[in-house]
């Protein structure tokens, strides 16, 4: 299982609907496209960020990011 797939699984376990792509020279960056379950907006609140960082780090990513474009 790739880091990205594992990260998506861990985020889903936490109730977060997000797609994750690996980027960077060695795939060290997790680029997340994330939406609330109601689809309203990207989540940048501290608690949401903590969950995203924890789960993606657990999947092996060094840098956890939200896609800007």
């Amino acid at each position, binding site marked *: 299982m790739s880091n990205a797939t594992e990260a998506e699984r861990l985020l889903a376990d936490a109730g977060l609907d997000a797609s994750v792509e690996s980027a960077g020279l*060695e795939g060290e960056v997790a680029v997340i496209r994330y939406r609330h379950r109601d689809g309203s907006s990207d989540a940048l609140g501290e608690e949401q960020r903590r969950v995203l960082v924890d789960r993606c780090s657990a999947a092996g990513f060094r840098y956890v990011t939200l896609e800007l*474009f």
Partner: protein
Amino acid sequence: MSRSEALETKERALRDVLSSCESVIIGFSGGVDSSFLAYVALDELGPDRVLAVTGRSPAYPGVQHEMAVKVARSVDLPHLEIQTYELDDPGYAANAPDRCYFCKAELYQRLLTVMRERGFNVVLDGSNADDLDDHRPGLAAARELGVRSPLQEVGLTKAEIRILSKRAGLPTWEIPASPCLASRIAYGLEVTPKRLRAIEDAEARLREVHTWRELRVRYHGGLARLEVAPEDIESLSETSLRERVIQALRDAGFARACLDLQGYRRGALNESFGREAAGARGGFGDT
């Protein structure tokens, strides 16, 4: 001994070191440390025996150059600018973790040439006592070439230098660190003038759209990873600001960009090898 007395003792020791050097060339970036060192050297030795030299290259941030000029003018510091060519060195351009060694070796050799040509005694740099706790390949270059670090020799830390700089009225006392632009490029990706320009351009544009506590644009090979202070991350929930940030990054030439959810942290690009290489010694410099 009180904190204040300890500071005074260290500053006296610094003045003694500088006095013993008699005449000095100072590697002068316009940052907190080298500005304070140059200020004290000027006060201790006088303008005929101090020359602050700034090495300019595509990796040296323009905003830092502006500060160097401002400091030199504000205290009538003799100031010389020279060109450095570290990007021509394959060891530097390869961007391995020892990149700083090649950069500093290039700079110090040119400073030593200036020293010999102009009849000065010694070349100094602004490394401080905190730098001893970091892995800093540039320090190895300094020791090999006989460059001295008086702030480090007398045990002055960055925090102490900021306090003394404030007392001295230097504008640098509260400026954030502004390390070389190459530190934004992920290790293993070649350092090129084009990449450095894109990073500097992006950061300049981003500073125009918002006042950031900290800001770094990290380059991961076609992907810009934006680091801002953790306290500033939530501000990007605001659609208008996020749109302006996106436009700034696009205008700087990036095809793809992302926002780091942990925010700015010192030496973030060293995290890839930090644990293994640094062991218990901590980070890899102020990047």
